[in-house]
């Protein structure tokens, strides 16, 4: 009963625009005072400090920083030239290039908003110039940028791993195949659009051009090799790889002579601010977590649902619908922090692998970034394209359908995301 009131109070606070992390903390504080009296107020100081000191979360500022440093124009331009040489000869080539470069960028940056801001400002004006409509340019940029949170490294995956006590490295491995599937699916839909609307071919395939652009882009292409190679080979942890990503992005920036102290300063600030905004949520979730532990609500919820059905595929379907719906209204970080700790006992009870479930959650939230009203990636993309959100959404539905198909495949054929995990880390 009390927790129900707390939940309603939290929703009411979110609706009047109390920041989500602070609404969570206030609701938890109310619950704590109701359970333990006003003497427990002092513990809020300890818990909000403890919540902000999670060692695994140190990779978040590092990956955000690496992504921000990589956002310098020269790196995007070289990647675009290289991917254009690979795929520009196909009809609708520029849309394909947009998706292909997003795949590369996703392997460096952990944030889809960073991805869309970096690539959209280059790709969208170019697409519009070549005759693509603004809603189509915005839709293809937005949906392909969401691959950034499926393909490692991924900030939502780090948050999930901490919330669910799962392995960040295994989650990163699990995201690779679905991310590539999503990229190919988006390219296929873009090709169908290109055929239907007669979008232009960029240039004929030229091996010499491919070689030249490859050599030029090689330093930038080494970044995913360092990040993913380091993690997947077990040479470094996710946090260490994040630190190395920062170092490598500075070196690549210096190599391309794109790097200046002003850009580094802005990147540092961007990294610090984004980290703070997410970490306040994480710290508040620790306060709420203590209350959930005392009240045993997640365990009771799990027992209640399992009493209705213990079919894990049915439960996964219910959870998919649930996460898709909350993705309409919550940012991915907030959705993970608020919901995952409550859901995890259920996942463990019905025998779903937490890494597999983490991938499902991330995919749902990638779709949520595309669905208004709260759709950070879509809104950024529309803002750059000066496109109407609803017109863009009408086009984007086709790309969202691809992401939904990948979600269904990954949910019901666990081998698709998990076979690489089993291969590298062994079958549990």
């Amino acid at each position: 009963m009390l927790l129900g009131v707390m939940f309603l109070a939290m929703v009411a606070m979110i609706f009047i625009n109390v920041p989500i992390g602070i609404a969570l903390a206030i609701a938890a504080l109310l619950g704590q005072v109701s359970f333990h009296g006003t003497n427990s107020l002092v513990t809020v100081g300890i818990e909000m400090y403890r919540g902000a000191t999670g060692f695994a979360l140190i990779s978040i500022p590092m990956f955000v920083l690496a992504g921000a440093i990589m956002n310098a124009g020269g790196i995007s331009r070289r990647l675009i030239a290289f991917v254009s040489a690979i795929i520009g000869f196909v009809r609708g080539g520029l849309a394909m290039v947009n998706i292909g470069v997003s795949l590369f960028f996703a392997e460096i940056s952990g944030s889809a908003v960073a991805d869309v801001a970096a690539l959209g400002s280059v790709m969208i004006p170019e697409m519009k110039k070549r005759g693509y409509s603004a809603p189509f340019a915005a839709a293809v940029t937005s949906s392909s940028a969401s691959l950034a949170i499926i393909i490692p490294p991924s900030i939502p995956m780090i948050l999930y791993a901490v919330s669910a006590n799962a392995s960040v490295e295994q989650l990163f491995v699990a995201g690779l195949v679905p991310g590539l599937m999503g990229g190919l699916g988006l390219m296929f839909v873009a090709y169908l659009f290109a055929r239907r609307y007669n979008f232009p071919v960029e240039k004929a395939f030229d091996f010499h051009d491919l070689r030249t652009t490859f050599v030029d882009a090689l330093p930038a292409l080494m970044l995913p090799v360092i990040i993913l190679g380091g993690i997947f080979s077990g040479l470094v942890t996710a946090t260490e790889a994040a630190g190395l990503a920062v170092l490598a992005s500075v070196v690549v920036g210096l190599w391309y002579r794109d790097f200046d102290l002003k850009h580094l300063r802005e990147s540092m600030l961007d990294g610090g601010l984004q980290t703070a905004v997410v970490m306040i949520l994480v710290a508040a979730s620790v306060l709420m977590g203590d209350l959930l532990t005392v009240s045993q609500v997640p365990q009771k919820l799990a027992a209640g649902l399992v009493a209705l059905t213990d079919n894990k595929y049915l439960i996964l379907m219910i959870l998919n619908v649930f996460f898709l719906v909350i993705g309409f209204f919550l940012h991915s970080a907030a959705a993970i922090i608020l919901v995952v700790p409550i859901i995890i006992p259920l996942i463990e009870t019905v025998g779903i692998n937490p890494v597999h479930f983490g991938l499902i959650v991330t995919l749902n939230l990638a779709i949520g970034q595309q669905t208004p009203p709260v759709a950070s990636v879509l809104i950024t993309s529309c803002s750059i394209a000066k496109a109407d959100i609803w017109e863009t959404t009408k086009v984007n539905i086709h790309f969202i359908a691809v992401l939904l198909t990948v979600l269904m495949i990954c949910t019901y054929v666990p081998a698709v995301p998990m076979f690489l995990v089993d291969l590298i880390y062994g079958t549990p």
Partner: protein
Amino acid sequence: MISQFRRTLDVTLQWVVIGQMIALTIMVLVAVFYRKFGASLSWYDEVASVMLAWITYYGAALAALRRQHLGFDGVLLRLPIPIRMTAVAIAEVLVIGFFLILAWAGWQVLEVVGDENLISLPWISVSFTQSVIPIGAALFVICELLSLPESWTAARVGRSLEHPEPHMTRS
């Protein structure tokens, strides 16, 4: 006068956050190389975690000054103006009230841990590392108050600070 103070605070907090980010980055990189050469740094985990907490709370104050915390104003901006402005006032009281409690609680904690030191670096006191809670919370309140006039005006005219671009209308 107030806008000058706001600008100074913004710039000061920017440099505090940038300094902390530089320190954390150097710490992580040095720790990687030390571990690879078989000499892991004993203090790394503890000190890097403290640095993360500092970035969290000093960065949160700056994010409050710029109204960049994750929120949802979709419902609020659709309310009639009198109800909307009452809701904004309630939201501000809640946020400021929470951080005042946090500042007080953080201060109480400092008195409790007064003579404790970090495990890995005994010459650093816990009260120094945890001072971020009362200081960060107090800064948050100041930043929230300084940015209130702008957010109040934005709410009154129905402008979203979350996604301010003009293309939200259904055409």
